[in-house]
């Protein structure tokens, strides 16, 4: 199979995967005991007569059999209608597009910080295997992913925001502050980013670092590295050109899969820091049992993850010519 047929095959495979995902999400929510209309009015704290409930049920298509409801939901979804909130009556699509960039911002910054740190540390530790730095970093990584993110978030919030008052404790911008220049506003925003990005990176660096280090160690033991050294190449070139390039292959794949992992972490951190992104949105929707936007949001996230995974697989196939597309 050529690379092109592989990519086309993977693209086609996205379609059934997408439908299966929608089926899983729909089923999960519709397995829920309880009447959505009742939940809807309990959620918005309104009292409504049974007749009105029945007419709303009919209007929303909730009197139809479940498979019909699924198809109706799916067709609306495919037309870009993600549903309306039970509580605020806002369109889910708009609510999501209002928040998505805040999450994307967090994730991109986290990726930049984590990948840089992990590669630099991972390479140094693999080259200086068994050195003090290696031991300290490895133990640090173990600690880094054993620390519960929400707890360290609370602790740093307490220390840097509440006690020392160096950093803001919530939101994306200081409320009520007047900024004299764009730079002022930017710096203020940057200060709001430090804690969330730092904490999100902590776990991810720990994970990536171990990956880079072990993959680098594996590569450094290969024959072609011995050959490269034997023919008198400079150590720098051996490490950065011959070893690192190959060692980063598994990292590429993991990067694609990282989006799901990071989104989960983002939900917790966004909630603690009142960061108006998708993660906090999802938690709020679930706590309020506001199902239509929750389903829409789930599908948006699922699609993001699917595309990221596809991207990772294709990137992997391109950078590693040895891969067989089966």
């Amino acid at each position, binding site marked *: 199979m050529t690379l092109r047929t592989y990519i086309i095959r993977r693209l086609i495979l996205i379609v*059934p*995967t997408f439908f*299966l*995902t929608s089926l*899983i*999400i729909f089923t*999960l*929510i519709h*397995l*829920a*005991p*309880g009447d959505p209309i009742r939940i809807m009015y309990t959620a918005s704290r309104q009292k409504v007569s049974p007749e009105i409930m029945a007419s709303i049920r009919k209007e929303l298509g909730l009197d139809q059999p479940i498979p019909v409801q699924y198809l109706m939901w799916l067709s609306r979804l495919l037309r870009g209608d993600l549903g309306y909130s039970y509580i605020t009556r806002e369109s889910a699509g708009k609510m999501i597009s209002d928040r998505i960039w805040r999450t994307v911002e967090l994730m991109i910054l986290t990726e930049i910080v984590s990948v840089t740190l992990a590669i630099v540390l991972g390479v140094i530790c693999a080259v200086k295997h068994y050195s003090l730095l290696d031991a300290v970093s490895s*133990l640090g990584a*173990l*600690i880094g*992913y*054993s*620390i*519960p*993110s*929400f*707890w*360290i978030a*609370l*602790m740093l*919030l*307490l220390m840097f925001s*509440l006690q020392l008052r160096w950093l803001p404790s919530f939101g994306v911008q200081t409320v009520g502050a007047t900024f004299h220049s764009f730079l002022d506003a930017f710096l203020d925003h940057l200060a709001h980013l430090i804690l969330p990005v730092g904490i999100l990176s902590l776990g991810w660096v720990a994970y990536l670092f171990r990956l880079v280090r072990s993959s680098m160690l594996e590569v450094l033991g290969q024959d072609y590295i011995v050959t490269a050294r034997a023919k008198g190449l400079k150590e720098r070139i051996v490490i950065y050109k011959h070893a690192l390039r190959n060692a980063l292959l*598994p990292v590429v794949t993991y990067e694609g*899969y990282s989006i*799901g*992992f990071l*989104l*989960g*972490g983002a*939900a*917790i951190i966004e*909630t603690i820091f009142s960061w108006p992104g998708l*993660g906090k949105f*999802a*938690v709020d929707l*679930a*706590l309020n*049992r506001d*199902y239509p936007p*929750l389903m829409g949001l*789930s599908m948006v*996230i*699922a699609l993001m*993850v*699917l595309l990221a*995974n596809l991207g990772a697989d294709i990137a992997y196939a391109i950078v590693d010519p040895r891969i*067989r597309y*089966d």
Partner: protein
Amino acid sequence: MDSRLRARSEKKTEKVHRPSRATRLFIVLRKLKKSRLAVVGFGIVLFAAMVALLAPIIAPYDVQRMFYGKEAFPPSSEFWLGTDGGGRDVFSWVVWGARTSLYVGLAATLIELLVGLSIGMISGYFGGLIDEILMRITDIVISLPTLLLLILALSMFEMRGVHIIILVMGFLGWPLMARVVRGEFLTLKETTFVEAARSMGAASWRIILRHILPNTLSTIIVLVTIDIPSYIFWESALTFLGFGDPTTVSWGALLNTGQPYLRFAWWISTFPGLAIFFVSLGFNLFGDGLRDALDVKLRE
């Protein structure tokens, strides 16, 4: 991926001499003992287990007892780790919380094991269409963010509590287990001893359970050791976020009720989190040591 797996299976079949089971166990134990960090990890896990078992003896007060007029008291000789916003002893809560956390970790892992093993075994052994379908589903469940999936499922239930969280986590946490077991089965079913068993007319279930499964044991043990702390983490994270029952005696619940007091009473949030960290570190250290000692590679 296939080629890598095949390479591994070839390496496995090349070995002519295979030490007896007892000898192998001895080798593993010796390797484990040599890794000081693994011993420390095991010590931590053992300590946590002891605390959980002896909670009624260790805890100085009844966990639910509220000391009126002593709400949010700082650590003192009377309340070693202070009291929470309702006047409950934080130390007693942390001690009893060990029980909940370990129970959650073990119970969710058990469910994961049942589901993941079944799916992995069937997929890997029978292959074909059933494998294709099961792996598609696995791909989806694995790619959806864990937290999203958990809160989606949890928001369905009217009742809140630790058992619901265990069930949901266990039934959603199997994909990695299924994939790894499937991978092992794919390589092992091509080995000579399976062929021999098949030619002798052994039934499929017998080959699966008696011939192949025991050979995947070390991988499964390592996976379980690193899954337990992640369940402990998710349970406390979910309870912290408000998806649990805040009256359950768990570390996450204390973090949840302590959050509003963060500014005035740091001890309420500090100690349960420290306990989660401590136990996770123990399991992760031990899991790392086990992985090296059992020589398990977990790359899918």
